[in-house]
């Protein structure tokens, strides 16, 4: 028994934890949360390239870059924009399943604002716009932001659960988009509008540049302001955030409105790319892809932890996968099986728990 009389205890020697060994760079890099999404992207690209040698083939054609990679980036742009907006919503522990419908609404609004007028100018037949281009874009974006703000109000003010509030928007919003288009595909003829979705700037697709800008703007906003801190606090413990004086409701409404705005941007990109607005099908099931992109990027659906860069990589992964399926000639019947297998593989690869257990199994046979 260790009983020693000790009215004046002897001071213990200072705790001597050896200073942590500085890890090798690659070890530290391997712990970075973006590594696994990047590895996944590289793997899918490698599979694509091995079966489809044309993948890396980039050409300079008509004053811009041309090739599969450009297609992928271009196609991933609207998805990335939607997913970026959604990332913030998910970081507050919410969800928005109405983004697809909002994409359709904003496209329809743009098409309606442009209208279907044409005239012969200087001897050539031209489509005109009823409204100045800036107003067209503004209107479409405003429609998106409005839908998002409505979601936010239902959630933060009326206290509906996010999934229900946005489900309502998903149903009614799709209906509204169809109402706006009359259930038809409204074709858009006004050429300047096409720049957004299929134009090029400095040889790069404008849509991708827009996505880049949204990403950059958001990153800047989150770095330079306390928004990131507040959003994470709300996502982790809304009650505590409120007690600390964070305006949780206002921020929630703003975040949903911003998500709607992002969906609006995507709607403009999509409608401009396909030169038409389709109230029935535009953005259909986009919410699933967007949520998938967000999660693959390392954002937790339970709130609190998010990564914008991860989301962008997630969107690229999904689009690369889709393109790969098209490019290597997978029969359409098994598209979904391939997608499922890849998603399973991706999420296991990203699970640190899985990697740990894999290592444990690998080392068990190892006498070290």
């Amino acid at each position, binding site marked *: 028994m260790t009983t020693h009389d000790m009215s004046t205890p002897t001071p213990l020697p200072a705790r001597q934890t050896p200073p942590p060994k500085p890890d090798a760079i690659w070890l530290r890099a391997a712990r970075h949360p973006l590594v696994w999404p990047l590895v996944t992207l590289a793997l899918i690209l490698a599979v694509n390239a091995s079966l489809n040698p044309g993948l890396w083939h980039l050409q300079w054609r008509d004053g811009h870059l041309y090739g599969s990679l450009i297609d992928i980036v271009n196609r991933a742009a609207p998805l990335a924009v939607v997913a970026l907006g959604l990332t913030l919503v998910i970081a507050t*522990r919410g969800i928005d*399943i109405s983004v697809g419908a909002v994409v359709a609404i904003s496209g329809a609004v743009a098409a309606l604002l442009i209208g279907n007028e044409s005239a012969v100018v200087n001897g050539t037949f031209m489509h005109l716009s009823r409204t100045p281009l800036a107003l067209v874009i503004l209107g479409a974006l405003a429609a998106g932001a409005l839908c998002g703000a409505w979601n936010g109000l*239902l959630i*933060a003010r*009326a*206290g*509906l*659960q*996010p*999934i*229900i*509030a946005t*489900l*309502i*928007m998903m*149903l*009614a*919003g*799709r*209906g*509204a*988009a*169809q*109402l706006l288009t009359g*259930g038809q595909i409204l074709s858009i003829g006004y050429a300047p509008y096409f720049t957004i979705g299929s134009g090029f700037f400095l040889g790069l697709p404008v849509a991708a540049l827009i996505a880049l800008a949204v990403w950059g703007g958001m990153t800047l906003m989150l770095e330079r302001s306390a928004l990131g801190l507040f959003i994470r606090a709300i996502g982790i413990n*809304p*009650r505590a955030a409120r007690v600390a004086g964070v305006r949780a409701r206002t921020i929630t409404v703003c975040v949903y409105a911003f998500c709607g705005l992002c969906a609006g941007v995507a709607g403009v990109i999509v409608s401009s790319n396909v030169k038409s607005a389709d*109230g029935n099908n535009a953005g259909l099931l986009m919410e*699933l892809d967007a*949520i*998938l992109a967000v*999660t*693959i990027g390392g954002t*937790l*659906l*339970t709130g609190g932890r998010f990564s914008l860069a991860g989301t962008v990589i997630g969107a690229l992964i999904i689009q690369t996968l889709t393109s790969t399926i098209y490019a290597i000639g997978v029969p359409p*019947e*098994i*598209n*979904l*099986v*391939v*997608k*499922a*297998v890849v*998603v*399973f593989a991706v*999420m*296991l690869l990203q*699970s640190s*728990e*899985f990697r740990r*257990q894999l290592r444990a199994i690998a080392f068990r046979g190892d006498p070290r």
Partner: protein
Amino acid sequence: MSTMALKGRAFRIPPVVASVLLLLAMVTFGSVMYTGFFSAQVFLNLLIDNAFLLVVAVGMTFVILTGGIDLSVGSVVALTTMVSAALVEHRHWSPGVVVPLVLAGGALFGAFQGWLVERFRLQPFIVTLAGMFLARGLCYVISIDSISITEPTFTAIAQTRVPLFAGAALSIGSVIALATFAVAVFVAHGTAFGRNVYAIGGSEHSALLMGLPVARTIVGVYALSGFCAALGGVLFTFYMLSGYGLHATGLELDAIASVVIGGTLLAGGVGLVAGTLCGVLMLGLIQTLITFDGSLSAWWTRIVIGALLLAFCLLQRLTQRGDGEAAAA
């Protein structure tokens, strides 16, 4: 010691009762507005036509109560119809073998997802999303076309009606669904498994520290959901008498909506299986009202569904005001 008896809070209508009242209000509205609406068969049809949804949503309730989600249910329903139809029609297996087989398959599929969620700490949303792709994809691997079922046992079950009163009747499927519902209510509130589900939803960490079998329960919950989806699939097969890869698209969303409209919190821990029945009836009733109206275009149909849902949820919130902080937190 604490001498002060804690004063109860103000009397509040429990959410389920509020939902029932709202449902009754809608029925009254329908009966006044539309001829033929107020009849026993219309209400029984609500059960007949939503039997599979009820079963699937009941399974989903358990998953959501633990704080998870299962997006694969719609696809599992489709896969079940497909496998049943293929085995019964093409392989001529006996339904007595096929039905238990697909039920076990569904449970196994769910358990696999649950195992992934539990063992590797994966997010339920993506695990079951991948499961959704997989099950739907497997349907097309079996056949991309639909397979009609002409097997006599299936057709007999599909077309048998259990007569009740005044000429109104229920289908076998709806009777099975009601039985499933009753069992589920018992499991949720009367068994240790059910209470563990609630405990995990309340706080998974606490449940672990309290020594509850968390891993087993989580796997069990997804297995249960998979089983319910397969059972829903069997009911769907009775209902449609066909197997088809495009069956039950979007059913997962209807199921989730029913559960959440029924008052269950998506964050887990709070809600009743009985609420889910209300949710299912609510969705069915909205659809019935719209068909009875019959004047809405496709888009107005959607807008009105959205508006009615909104009205329902807002009224439900209104009857529970004061609970707001708790629900939002």
